[in-house]
């Protein structure tokens, strides 16, 4: 093993970090939209949709992300040909974004649902008592507090997703791992390359954790003195 090779591989690999981050940002954005919608469907127990939402969450939780990735990659174009849309040459990044978005959506939905239920009942009553309608109550009083409650779990889930993106290369996305694989094929220094990759992922996760913990403090400023009292 040649440790110094890490310095060689590091710039080559990190130049693909933006692909990884792009997948993550897309997944989180899609996931947030799906998550809030599904959480509300489940909270208000919307008929039929509630049932579907339950199945969706249960399926996403119960199957490995790698299998989901293949299901979307092969399944979506197959579905689309039924309506005469050719998706066989679409950018694999698109399929990755959809898969990870759906996966994030399922976990965010449960996190947000738990958080909404975690907001004190008195908050909704206070909102109603001053004459707010249901939507105003939800948007102005419950959701802002629920998102703060949800934040730590949300942060964990995002970090998990970042690591999951390392599977995107399996459908041909050229991210850091994809680039790593081509480097292994040409250089035969697998260990050094995986070491480098682990350092990059670890570094990014540490940065994310720092960022999340800072924003958590900022978000929870109104809880501040409460936790200090405890």
């Amino acid at each position, binding site marked *: 093993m040649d440790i110094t090779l890490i310095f060689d591989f590091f710039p080559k690999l990190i130049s693909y970090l933006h692909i990884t981050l792009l997948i993550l940002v897309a997944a989180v954005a899609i996931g947030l939209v799906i998550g809030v919608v599904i959480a509300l469907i489940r909270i208000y127990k919307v008929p039929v949709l509630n049932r579907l939402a339950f199945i969706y969450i249960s399926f996403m939780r119960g199957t490995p992300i790698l299998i989901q990735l293949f299901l979307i990659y092969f399944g979506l174009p197959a579905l689309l040909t039924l309506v005469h849309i050719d998706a066989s040459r679409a950018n694999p990044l698109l399929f990755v974004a959809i898969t990870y978005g759906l996966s994030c959506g399922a976990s965010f939905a449960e996190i947000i649902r738990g958080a909404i239920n975690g907001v004190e009942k008195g908050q909704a009553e*206070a909102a109603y*008592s001053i*004459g707010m309608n249901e939507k105003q109550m939800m948007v102005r009083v419950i959701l802002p507090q629920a998102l703060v409650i949800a934040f730590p779990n949300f942060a964990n889930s995002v970090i998990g997703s970042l690591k999951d993106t390392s599977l995107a290369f399996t459908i041909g996305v050229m991210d850091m791992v994809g680039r790593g694989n081509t480097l292994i094929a040409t250089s035969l220094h697998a260990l050094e390359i995986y070491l480098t990759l682990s350092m990059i992922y670890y570094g990014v996760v540490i940065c994310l954790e720092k960022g999340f913990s800072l924003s958590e403090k900022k978000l929870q400023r*109104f809880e501040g003195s409460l936790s200090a009292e405890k």
Partner: protein
Amino acid sequence: MIQLRNIQKSFGNQPVLKGIDLTVKKGEVVSILGPSGSGKTTLLRCINFLERPTEGEVMIDDITVSSQKGSKKEILTLRKKTAMVFQQYNLFRHKTVIENVMEGLIVVQKNSKETARKLAMEVLEKVGLTEKANAYPVQLSGGQQQRVGIARALALNPEVILLDEPTSALDPELVGEVLEVIKRIAEEGITMIIVTHEVSFAKDVSDYIVFMDQGEIVEEGTPTVIFNNPKEERTKRFFKRINREAGILESNLSSVI
């Protein structure tokens, strides 16, 4: 004017209110007294439909909402005529003191931010909390939080303020400041319905006393009549017990009365 007609409420098979009729005139302060579990709080919550009555109707001014037929829109209209002060304060935790008071003014009454801020400051002045305007609820004492709760209700300039045991969750030494604020706004001629355990306070501040037990009104009348000359055995027994426990209460209230 507020009128409750034959308000009944059951939780499952358990009847909690057995047909309450009550009329409150504009500017009147009505206190509802009674032992725990008598249905006082449920009655109060039926007035703004936080609990939907099983039977009966609520009339405030020109709007009447009936228990079963009352639509969402009617209930909303009814709620816009009322405001409530909660036992557990229920301030919006994610908003500062002034934002709590401004919220209804902006979102429900559609005032501009500047107008809302001005009105909110005036009300905070009344409850003596202008210097805490930018604090978050968790940074305040219970008494201060409840004064914000009162300010939030008062700011909306409602037809009636419903106060649900406003001092029951407070440490004894903080009760006085809250009662003082309630007394001050009572003197301004704001209509209030107060559910309370503070008997001497009720005597002092109310125009009318309602004594409830087991889901019905046992006796009602002016404080003089109810306190000096109760007719019903249940009322007499209640006051006898309260008087025995009143030692601590009196010392708290001496500052107010």
